């Protein structure tokens, strides 16, 4: 640098170094300024988005694989508030929303024009039917090609899956329903909500395609296969609806169960809503009316209860089928006098005769022979006063007053023996009777046949929940019930099939606590074929006006159900079935 112009080079170098330093300094200043931080914060919202993932809700099938509850596309319709305000088309959107979404024009316009402060996105309607949403989308597309004053810019459509019930109100009392927030209510939908819905998550989805591996895998909910047979369910619902008209009844319930496995094949009630139409809920079920009367509405069953008292007495050895009782027409227990259903005296009867003629006096006497401790111990073993544990939401335990309870009196020994003063659900009656039909083994009633998760099917095993009576007692009582049915309640018989069964008629207590003799609950429980029971049917018809007797109302309904049930279940008449069995495999 010993040249004459070295200082010039040096000056240029110093200038360039200073310039570079200034540029770098400015870069650092800009990067670390408050404005840069604000810009970074503002732009971060565009680096991705939070999305709520509701996995596809698991489907529900009947035992043959027919879809009972599936999913369909519905849309959430909303607006980007900033875009709408910039486009100045709030009027157009409010008008479209009123025409297509059924919103009030003035309310919609007010919401769009005066949103809550800080709100960027406004939901106008959720669970919009796909046909309606598609019409609105087409309108938006058409408007986009028109002058800007007619535009629907800023209107957004977010597709989601909503519950759908292709069978409409079939088995609605069993299935329950799902609301727009993806939560199940009543029945299977509520009981298995967490299994069906999977795990909804709120996740950050980065827009950066290099971070695509951060997208979470959301597993779908599990599918359920029910024990219900849709043919049998439809048949029982049809017969029940007809019975309501025929007998002028208030309500009714029919439960069909396999007494050997506890699989519930049908559970029909008269109060059924279309679960796709949630608006009808409040009209159909006002003031917390039970959604499924078969499990949620306990009532006094009447004489059907006698089979459990007789089972207990036979099992305890206090009576034999041949034990006789002289029915004088009344019996006094605890200061209260009880009479038979017709007020008559039936003279000397054996235990089968007591069941056949449904004698209150005789069964009250049997209860005294059994004793307080024994009787309530057996009734508890049969499951009365406790939930059955069926896999449906909102099951009631009923009420079995026990010695020691404040409202229990010694006279309850008699009233309970013929099914008054005790409340039960139809499903409790069926579960308890399964012990009689199934050689003493009481099965757990259940609705879910299998759970299908990740392509793997896990079947529900049969569970024995107790052995309240011995196999011998069960066989003896079954034979007594076959005999009494064949000789008394002919309206329940089905030619070709040997059935066991018992009627029930219970007076209903009024609001003053007095029983009204003209208003009854009529019931019937029966099962067959007795040597290899494949079905157990419980019928409860509430407050029939055509007749007050179970033998004239519930028994014929039972007969109608069984007549069609044996066809649907492919059960041939006994002589053919035994003929086939004798040939061997």
């Amino acid at each position, binding site marked *: 640098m010993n040249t004459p112009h070295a200082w010039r080079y040096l000056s240029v170098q110093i200038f360039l170094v200073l310039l570079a330093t200034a540029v770098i300094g400015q870069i650092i200043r800009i990067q670390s300024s408050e404005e840069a931080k604000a810009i970074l914060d503002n732009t971060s919202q565009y680096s991705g988005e939070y999305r709520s993932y509701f996995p596809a809700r698991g489907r529900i099938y009947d035992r043959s694989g027919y879809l009972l509850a599936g999913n369909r596309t519905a849309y959430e319709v909303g607006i980007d508030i900033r875009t709408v305000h910039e486009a100045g088309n709030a009027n157009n959107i409010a008008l479209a929303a009123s025409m297509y979404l059924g919103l009030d024009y003035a309310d919609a316009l007010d919401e769009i024009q005066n949103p809550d402060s800080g709100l960027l996105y406004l939901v106008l309607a959720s669970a919009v039917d796909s046909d309606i949403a598609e019409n609105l989308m087409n309108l938006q597309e058409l408007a986009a090609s028109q002058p800007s004053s007619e535009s629907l810019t800023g209107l957004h459509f977010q597709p989601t899956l909503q519950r759908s019930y292709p069978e409409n109100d079939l088995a609605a009392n069993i299935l329950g329903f799902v609301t727009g927030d993806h939560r199940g209510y009543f029945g299977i939908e509520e009981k298995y909500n967490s299994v069906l819905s999977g795990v909804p998550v709120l996740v950050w989805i980065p827009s950066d395609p290099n971070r695509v591996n951060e997208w979470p895998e959301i597993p779908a909910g599990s599918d359920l296969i029910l024990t219900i047979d*849709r043919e049998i369910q439809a048949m029982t619902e049809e017969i029940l609806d007809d019975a309501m008209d025929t007998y002028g009844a208030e309500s009714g319930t029919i439960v069909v169960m396999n007494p050997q496995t506890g699989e519930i094949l049908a559970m029909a009630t008269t109060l059924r809503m279309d679960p796709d139409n949630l608006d009808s809920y409040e009209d159909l079920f006002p003031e917390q009316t039970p959604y499924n009367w078969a499990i949620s509405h306990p009532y006094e069953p009447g004489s059907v209860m006698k089979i459990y008292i007789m089972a207990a007495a036979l099992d305890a050895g206090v009576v034999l089928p041949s034990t006789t009782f002289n029915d004088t027409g009344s019996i006094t227990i605890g200061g209260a006098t009880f009479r038979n259903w017709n007020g008559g005296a039936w003279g000397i009867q054996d235990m089968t005769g007591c069941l056949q003629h449904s004698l209150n006096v005789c069964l009250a006497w049997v209860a005294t022979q059994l004793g307080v401790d024994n009787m309530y111990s057996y009734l508890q073993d049969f499951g009365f006063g406790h939930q059955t544990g069926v896999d449906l939401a909102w099951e009631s335990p009923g009420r079995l007053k026990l010695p020691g309870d404040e409202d229990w009196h010694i006279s309850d020994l008699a009233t309970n023996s013929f099914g008054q003063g005790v409340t039960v659900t139809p499903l409790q009656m069926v579960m308890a009777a399964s012990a009689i039909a199934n050689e003493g083994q009481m099965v757990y009633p259940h609705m879910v046949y299998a759970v299908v998760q990740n392509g793997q099917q896990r079947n529900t095993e049969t569970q024995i929940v107790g052995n309240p009576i011995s196999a011998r007692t069960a066989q003896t009582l079954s034979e007594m019930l076959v005999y009494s049915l064949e000789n008394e309640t002919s309206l329940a018989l089905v030619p070709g099939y040997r059935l066991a069964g018992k009627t029930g008629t219970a007076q209903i207590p009024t609001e003053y606590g007095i029983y009204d003799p003209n208003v009854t609950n009529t019931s019937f429980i029966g099962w067959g074929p007795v040597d290899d029971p494949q079905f157990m049917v419980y019928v409860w018809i509430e407050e029939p006006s055509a007749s007050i007797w179970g033998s004239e109302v519930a028994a014929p309904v039972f007969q109608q159900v069984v007549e*069609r049930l044996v066809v649907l279940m492919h059960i041939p008449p006994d002589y053919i079935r035994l003929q086939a069995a004798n040939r061997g495999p």
Partner: protein
Amino acid sequence: MNNVTQLISKYRQAPWRHQRQWIGLFLLVIVLVAMVAGIYLNVTAGASVAGREIQILKDDIIENQRFNHDLETHLAELTSIKSMHTQAEDLGFEPIRPEDITYVIVEGYIPPPPIDLSTNAALPAAPLIKTEYTQSLFDWAAQAFILSTARSGEQP
């Protein structure tokens, strides 16, 4: 010694030679950096395109799943019990009564098996993103080395 003295002398007389060396070296570094940057840009752009395609495919999967649900539900509506009964009645069928049935004992008849909706979907899924897109250069070299070692040990 004379040669060295001459060389130093020449450089003193022509310093631009020394400067040209430095400039050449600087340009070489620039070219290398540009090459690395170019390759990096190319790979990154490729990964971004692939990532975007994956995003689109994921959206397609979600849409297809939704469409499948729609179709399944629609099919169930068409084959619902009310619909089937109506169709059967329109075709002249009527519910059978027990007395109309003739039962025939068929030797060796096997009743239909219980329903089974299990599938093979539980098989472990293949990794969504190939390892080439996720492993480092060192991982790739180590894997290649292990594979080549393993192959050399195989029987011909």
